[in-house]
Structure formats: C-alpha cells, structure tokens
C-alpha cells in the first residue's frame, strides 16, 4: 500500500482530518498527564510507613480537672495519671504492648525540628530536618518498627518532662535514612547529635530501618524518612496512647478501651468519633484526597477515551458512506477486501500519528503548566510513550468497525449509478 493516494484523499477532507487529529492530540495530552498524576498519587499512598500497620490503635484523650500548670508538682501529678493509664492498658486482655506517644505517622499532627552535628545550631544551621516521636521503652515494639543497629530503649532511659519543656533527651533512636544523612560513613551509632539547637548532645543508641514522619503533606517531602525517637513521656493535661493488640483482637480492644480508661479515671474526655482510631483509619484519612483524585482522574480518562473513540467511529463511518462508490470501483478493479481494510487503517494511523506528534508537544506543555501552578514533578518520557501507544491503539480499534464495513462493500456497487 502506498501513501500518496491516501494523502490525496485526505486533502479533500481537511476539516475532518484536522478535527480528528486535534481530538487525538488533546486526548493524548490529558490522558498521559492524568496517568502520571494517578501514578504519583498511588505511589504516595502505597508506600509503607515502616511500622507494622495491622493491630495498631491510637487513643487520644484529655483529662478534666487535671493540673494544667508547668510547675514540678503539676507535672508529677500529670505523669502519675499517665502511668496509671499505661498500667491499666497494659493489663488489658488482648493488648500486647502500649506506649504513650506524641504523634504517629500520617496523623498530620507534627513535631518538627532540626538535628545538628554542632551544639547551639538551631533550625537555621541544622544539618537535617526531622520529626520527633516521644514514647517509652515499649515504643519500638508498639509501633512495630525494626531496629537494624544498636539497642532498644530500656526502662532506665525513659524520662518525663512537660509538654513545652524544650530540654532534649540524653539518648535517641533515629531512622537509618537520617543516620545516613548525618553520618554518610555509616558510623552513627554512639555519636552525639544536637537537637533543636541544644548545647548538650543526645547519643544515638540505635537505628530503625524505616519510619515515616507524622505528616504526608508536601512540606515534609524533603525529609519524609527522617524520624527521631526519644524515650520521653510528655506530660500535659492530654495524652495519646499507641496500643498494639494481639492478632485478631483489634476490634475487641477498640470497643473496650474507652470504658477501661473511664473506669481508671472518669474525669476525662475521649471523643466518641476520633478518640479511638485504628491505624487503618488514620491512613485512610491521611490519603483520602489522594485516592479520590486518582479515582476521579481514572474515570475522566476512561470517558475521554470513549468519547474520542466514538468521534473516530462516527467520522470514519461518514467517510465510508461518502466513498461507497469509490470503494466499489476499487474492488471492481481488483482490490481485495483486506486492501480496503488496510486503506482505512493506514489512513487512521496517519491521522492519529500526526495528532499524536502534536499531542506530545501539548502533553509536555501541560506538564510544565502543572509544574508551574501545582506541586508536580516533571513527567518521565515513559508516560508520554504509553499515552502515545494508548491513543494509537484506540484509533485502530475505533476505525476497525467502519473499515470492516467498507471492506464489505461489493464490487457491483461500481456498476450502479450513484
């Protein structure tokens, strides 16, 4: 099959050709950007936090009538209430371990700060940004993170301090990502680091494999894996507890935990809706917008492809109708059915090809526009190429039905007057 007759025929339908090419170009531009957005959202949603995320509960509560001051007596009173709760929770059937905690991954309640290798350098001169988690000696077991070097906290490491007290712990466990950033030689263990511009070092006693920071919004994207864990019970008139239940006991513990805490001390508030949440709930909440966006983009892409396909079918059908007689003549002159089929397929390939070339340009332009206006990354070439394949296949699939109809035009048509 040679191209000149096809091109000559297309010249007669300039407007239609331009329209199909334009539609394919726009579809390509939007579909490959949408697939890229879907992929980056899904990639975000699927990354593991580094915790064992099953069988994990978070309880948030506030005491009523508790001392709210920052003086030593108030703090000790708050601490004794905290320890009373911890003891009761640990004794609860179905519970395997419990830690007080300031925040957990994806909760979007963040204790941000900085880590430095020199004393007295605050955020400004810090070597890395980090998010702090504070718990007691059961914190690693409760969160289910893996210690890859050094040792866990022991009961002797654990201290308590007021919520706003900005003194820093003597020992910390940090994530491997943070350790590698601070000490690229891999000798972080046993070294001292300065937290939040402190003048007294905190010693790194262990490294955990992976632990996501407590926020999933874009401002933490530069330090998503830089977590620091300190063995500190924070005292104030509210507290959060992370609870790891025995396998299969999550729902039972979840239902019973509020009543247990009310029995320990009825003078407290636990929110009916958000007071006790499983980690699965917290994860779903954190990524709800991302998932929603991905689904919406997916649906729009499908409808878009359907509309474009319908447009191609419609326009090609008309062309086939219009060229009924010409097809008959060609058949009478010896063209086989397959030749007619190939003619229309090649014609579509040509139009879709031109559209796709324009579409690649549009796709890149659209990506640049998105980078400028939204927090988006540069789209890798593979998305453009896969978009290209999708629209070309779509074009061929859409043209097949009318082309088949064309190939079925009998040669005898040529002999009839139009």
């Amino acid at each position: 099959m040679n191209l000149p007759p096809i091109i000559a025929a297309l010249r007669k339908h300039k407007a239609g050709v331009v329209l199909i090419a334009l539609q394919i170009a726009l579809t390509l531009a939007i579909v490959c950007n949408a697939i890229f957005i879907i992929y980056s959202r899904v990639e975000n949603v699927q990354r593991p936090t580094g915790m064992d995320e099953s069988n994990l509960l978070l309880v948030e509560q506030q005491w009523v009538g508790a001392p709210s001051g920052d003086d030593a007596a108030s703090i000790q009173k708050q601490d004794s209430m905290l320890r009373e709760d911890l003891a009761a929770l640990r004794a609860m059937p179905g519970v395997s371990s419990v830690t007080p905690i300031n925040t957990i991954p994806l909760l979007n309640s963040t204790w941000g700060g900085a880590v430095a290798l020199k004393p007295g350098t605050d955020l400004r001169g810090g070597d890395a940004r980090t998010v702090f988690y504070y718990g007691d000696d059961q914190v690693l077991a409760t969160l289910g993170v893996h210690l890859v070097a050094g040792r866990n906290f022991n009961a002797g490491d654990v201290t308590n301090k007021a919520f706003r007290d900005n003194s820093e712990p003597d020992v910390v466990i940090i994530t491997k990502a943070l350790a590698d950033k601070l000490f690229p030689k891999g000798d972080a263990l046993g070294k001292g680091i300065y937290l939040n511009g402190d003048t007294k070092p905190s010693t790194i006693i262990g490294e955990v494999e992976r632990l996501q920071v407590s926020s999933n919004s874009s401002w933490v994207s530069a330090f998503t894996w830089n977590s620091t864990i300190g063995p500190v019970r924070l005292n104030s008139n509210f507290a959060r507890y992370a609870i790891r239940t025995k396998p299969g006991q999550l729902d039972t513990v979840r239902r019973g935990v509020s009543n247990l805490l009310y029995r320990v001390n009825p003078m407290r508030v636990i929110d009916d809706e958000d007071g006790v949440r499983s980690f699965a709930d917290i994860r779903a909440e954190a990524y709800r917008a991302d998932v929603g966006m991905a689904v919406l983009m997916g649906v729009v892409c499908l409808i878009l492809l359907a509309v474009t396909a319908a447009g191609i079918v419609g326009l090609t059908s008309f062309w086939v109708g219009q060229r009924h007689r010409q097809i008959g003549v060609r058949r009478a002159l010896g063209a086989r059915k397959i030749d007619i089929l190939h003619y229309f397929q090649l014609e579509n390939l040509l139009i879709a090809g031109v559209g796709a070339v324009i579409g690649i340009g549009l796709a890149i332009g659209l990506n640049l526009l998105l980078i400028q206006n939204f927090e988006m990354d540069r789209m890798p070439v593979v998305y453009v190429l896969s978009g290209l394949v999708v629209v070309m296949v779509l074009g061929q699939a859409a043209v097949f039905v009318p082309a088949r109809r064309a190939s079925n035009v009998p040669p005898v048509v040529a002999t009839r007057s139009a």
Partner: protein
Amino acid sequence: MFAYYLDLALRSLKRNKVLTALMVLALALGIGASMTTLTLLRLLSGNPLPEKSSQLFYVQLDPYPKDHPFSRSDKLPWLLTYVDAMNLLHAHRAPRQAAVAMSRMKLTPTTTQKRPFFSDGVMTTADFFGMFEAPFQYGGGWSAADDETRAKVVVIAEALNNRLFGGANSVGRMLRINDQDFRIIGVLRHWSPQPHFYSLYLGGRNYGDGDAVFVPLTSARAAALDPINEFSYGDGNREVLETAPVIWLGFWAQLPDKSAASAYASFLTAYAQQQVELGRFQRPRSSLSTLMHWLDSQHVVPDNVRMQTGLAFSFLLICIVNTVGLLLAKCLRRSKEIGVRRALGASRPAIFAQFMVEAGLIGIAGGAFGLLFAEFGLWCIRRQPAEYASLAHLNLSMFACTFAVALIASLIAGILPAWRACVITPAPQLKSA
C-alpha cells in the same frame, strides 16, 4: 422561519438517532463535569464578607532571623507574635482591630449531665464581632476593658446554644471551658463565612460549619487554653507563649478608605523599622493585604479542586471538538439536501441559520442532561468527607450558567459545519443526484 428550522433540525436529528445521542451525551458529560467543578471552585473561592471585604486588611510582620530557612523563601511569616499583636492593638491606629487564634476547647455542660466534649473555639479581642459583622441573637460581644481585665466571659454560637440550652436565651448562664467557669454574654445567630478567612494558618478548618465558642484572648490564656498552631522561629524559652519567639496570632484591621489604608501601611513600615532598631527584628518588612488578596495569595482553594476544574474544562474542550467533527460529517452528507434547498431559493444565511438551530438544539439537550450529570457530580461531592462537602449545591446562577455554557459550546461547535454547509454550491449536488 425559526419554527421551520426547528422542524428541519428535529427531523434531521431523528434520522440519525445514535449519532444524535452520541453528540448530546458527549456534550452533556463535558458540561456536567465542568459545571460540577466550577460550582465547587466558585464556592471555595467566594468572598466571605462581600459587603465589607474591601475594608478588611490582614497584617504581616517579619520577626524571623535572616538566616532562618523560612526567610529564604522570601515570604512573610503568616502570623504575628503576641508582643507585636498587642503593640499594634494598643497603638489604636485603625478604627477596629482584632488578634485571633484558634483553640481546641474542652467544654463541660453545666446544665445537663452530658460528658465534656471538644469544640473549635476562637480566642480573640473585643472588635472581632463588629469588624466581621457577626450577628447576635441574644446579648452582645465584650469590651476592650474586658480584654484588659481578663473577664471570664464567652460568646457562643447558635448551634451550641441549641445543643446546651435548647435555643433559649442563655445570656448570664455559665459554661465550663477548660475547667473554668465563663459567663455567657452573647449568642450569635448562625454565622459561618466561607471560606473561614480568619482561621487561616491558625489550625481551624478553612470551610464548613462555624466555630462554636468565642473567648477573650487574655481570659483564654489565663485559663491555659493553647492555640492549635504555633510556629517557633528562634531559641529561647518557649514555655510562656506571650514572650516566646513563636508566632501564633492572626491580626486584622478595618480601614474605611484608601487614605486610612496607606496611613496604616506607613505606620506598619515605621513600626517594623522601630523594631529593627530595638533589635527585635532583623529585617524591616511588613505587609498589609485586603481580605480577598490575602485569601488569593495563600491559595485557600485546595489544589485538587483547581486541578479538577482544569481537567473538566479540557474535557469539555475535547467534547466540543468531538461535536464539531460529528456535525461536520453529518452536514457534508446532507450536501444534496442543501443543494435542493438552495436551488429552491434558500439563501446562504438561511442555510447557516438552519444548521445553527440544529447545533443549538443539541446544545440545549446537552445542557439538560449536563444538569443531571452536574447534580449527580455534586451529590457525589456531598458524600465525600471533605470539610467543604456540605456546601456543594447548584444555585440558580450556576443553573442558568449550565445552559448558557451548553448553548455557547454547541453554537461554537456548529459554526464550522454550518459555514461549510452554506458555501456548498447547489449545481454539482443537483447534477450528480
């Protein structure tokens, strides 16, 4: 004539039902998607106080050290320190000013045996209600003197009044906030400006229900209520928020006209300069933005919503291109019919008009179905857990807008085919027939 074109258009559309359905459906999907997202976008980027927004100004200063990472971004810190907020407040350079912070407040009902619960509360100063035109159902706000004396008074919202006091006039009754008794001095009528402009960066919600409790800032702090958000920018003691290097207050000023605004702006410049001389600031930077400018510059509208709107309109564009193609193919097929009409004396404008009527008809059908799709889309949004979900309703102007967009889209789509139809020369068409 119009009725005749309508009749011709209907016949032509009926002749090719699948194609007509395809065009209408594509257009309806495009219209439905764009109207859904446009409704949402308009809602979210609306003016919370249309009558007054031009008089309301948001104040920013820069207490951050030069080498702080945030300073590298060249943006001004979003909030003020307590010291600066109080200095501005006490300088009385604007008819009305207010410092605002949000707090999660623990409320203990004194009338019923209900358990204590948490609610979003506002800590602010006396001018807040007058400045933002919050309407009172009972009682009123507090005075500047109450701010000074840390009076234990509170203004509550209608919803909370209904919940605790069954909607009765509760002025004079007590409410326990964070274990301290506050006397109710006012009950607001339903008030929830959208977006919640005053809680931006303070940790409250940007959209949705109004806040339940309003407490004088000084009294709230005396009751140990903490702001939801605090951003620390330097070393030093952070235990006492009032003196700490922490920003945690939004600051608003009402300035009646341009000259007052420029006077206030130069006052701010002088203030920042003075603070540099005192050694409190390192850079004499300040800014005064109107309410709407402040909301725009901070991108209150979620990125996802803006992106969805863009997507929906590109979708509509493709649907229009699609419709142009199909209408064009259709009209070329009818060359003979057009030839006959032209030979019988129809003028070119008449042919053009006939085809435009046909396109318009498709547009109106597309608009009607598009409206259904838009209602469906908004229904889906209302079922989302987003904080703005409950606001998603189609109002009358968007209803009209849907039809206008549909009609315009279809007429644009119809121009090329109609033009191609009217330039057809009748003779060859008649000959070959």
